[in-house]
């Protein structure tokens, strides 16, 4: 299928639209960073970008390739220690939106970024939690960004790194987690949202040209979907221009 935009561009645009002006966002590298800076250039000029490295109110003048890029420091509002980032900002409830991704996402939005296979002798050793476990606990809401495929959306995780809406049968409230957890999963084919009753991630919107079967074939559990699926507008010309010409001209993250 020939398209005027890539799945990554669509995901970045959809994620950016989730951000309200003035919100405080814990930013990850890659698509979340692009989404945040896209939102900042459009509807959310006062978005406050916080990076776990300690940069608060960053205004990167180049695309940061790491979460500790020097461009996140120069011109930011505040630099603080990582103890402050995790205690005074995150655990203290000041972060409104957190972005997470991962090698595996289950039906409750639990995420595995630790191992494929067993923990002791894994088939693939992934990087591990980083700040993901505590972002999943504390951010007021979490947005997951991940491309759909059956291995990435399995029925069972190999390891639960970051908690979603239900962990081993328990709700977030029962487990004492302050944040609302993952409320949306932004994929390359559509959007899943957590069902307030069951905690399951339910398909609520399809991207242009994608069918329900396309999505279901890429999810490892019997995916529920809303009776009426929403439509999602493709990236606008302005969104694409900003992504391509300003934010990631070298296509580091926009495949």
């Amino acid at each position, binding site marked *: 299928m020939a398209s005027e935009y890539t799945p990554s561009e669509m995901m970045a645009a959809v994620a950016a639209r989730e951000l309200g002006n003035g919100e405080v966002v814990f930013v990850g*590298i*890659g698509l979340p960073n692009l989404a945040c800076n896209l939102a900042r250039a459009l509807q959310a000029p006062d978005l406050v970008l916080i990076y*776990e*490295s*300690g*940069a608060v109110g960053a205004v990167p003048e180049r695309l940061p*390739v*790491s*979460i*500790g*890029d*020097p461009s*996140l*420091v*120069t011109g930011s509002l505040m*630099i*603080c*220690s*990582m*103890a402050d980032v*995790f205690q005074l900002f*995150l*655990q203290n409830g000041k972060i409104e939106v957190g972005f997470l991704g991962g090698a595996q996402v289950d039906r409750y939005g*639990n995420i595995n970024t*630790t191992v494929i296979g067993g*923990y002791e*002798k*894994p*088939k*693939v*050793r*992934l*990087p*591990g*939690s*980083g*700040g*993901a*476990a*505590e972002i999943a*606990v*504390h951010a007021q809401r979490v947005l997951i960004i991940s491309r759909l495929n059956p291995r990435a959306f399995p029925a069972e995780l190999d*390891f*639960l*790194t*970051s*908690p979603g809406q239900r*962990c*081993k049968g*328990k709700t*977030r409230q029962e*487990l*004492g*987690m*302050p944040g609302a957890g993952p409320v949306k999963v932004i994929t390359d084919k559509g959007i899943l949202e957590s069902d307030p009753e069951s905690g399951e991630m339910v398909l609520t919107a399809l991207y242009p040209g994608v069918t329900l079967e396309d999505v279901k074939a890429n999810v490892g559990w019997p995916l529920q979907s809303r009776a009426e699926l929403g439509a999602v507008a493709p990236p606008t010309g302005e969104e694409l221009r900003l992504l391509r010409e300003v934010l990631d001209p070298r296509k*580091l993250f926009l495949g």
Partner: protein
Amino acid sequence: MHSKVVSMQEAVAAHVRDGDTVVIEGFTHLICFAAGHEIIRQRRRDLTIARLTPDLIYDQMIAAGCARKLVFSWAGNPGAGSLHAFRRAVEKGTPKLEIEEYSHFGMVARMSAGAAGLPFWTMRNYMGTDLPVANPRIRTVTCPYTGEVLATVPALNPDVTVIHAQRADQYGNAQVWGLLGVQKEAAFASKRVIVVVEELVDESVIRADPNRTLIPGMIVDAVVVEPWGCHPSYAQGYYDRDNDFYVAWEDISRDPAKLQEYLEQWVYGVKDRAEYLARQPDLKARLTAKDQYCEGVNYGF
């Protein structure tokens, strides 16, 4: 008071011992590759190496056989791929490597406890996850006021910590700006501290702006003057991160032979950091920081 300034060779020889728990901190910023290379050159063995993000330097130390154990919270090559020496060790057992794993907040908390002279630190964290299953040192404590059950981690008290700073005086009073990571906590938690700096300055420079001091000389054992000692990591206001090398590491580290060749050429094959730099004459033109100075403030009364 006598100067603590020594060469990197002397600092590592005196303060890093086989079997030690070693921390070279710095979150992306100010990671002291020069110290890691010298530890490899001096063929230290059985080290427990701890930091939040092992980064390329710990991948090299693992490949060189320095490490018995890794304590960490995120082991990747940000934006570029994997730490393949680490992955081979964990996935295939070559070389054998014990791991002890936390989240970033968990590692920060371990260092905070160590720095505060407490045996543990408390967090609201880890509920519902497999992290406490994989690591039984993640435990819980009950709040004596609310009855809430909270997560704990044990203090980390390294034998030796290496902190790279933009500048220090000869007694080790060190100033840092830009990202601060968990360096202050790591240094205060440590039995011995090596401070490595871009510039040695007079004590009066430190005293002119005491709010910038991150590490006081009283906890410092050695001061090493090593300009560009962080490359391929960076020092705000001095030189940029060498992102190209981080990308190149994906290929180098994926192939054990290539990785050994890298170590031969750039670690064992050079005497010190000066020689490492002399062989890369393009670095300064490519990475030297542009000037963007802030104004000073008034400390008068």
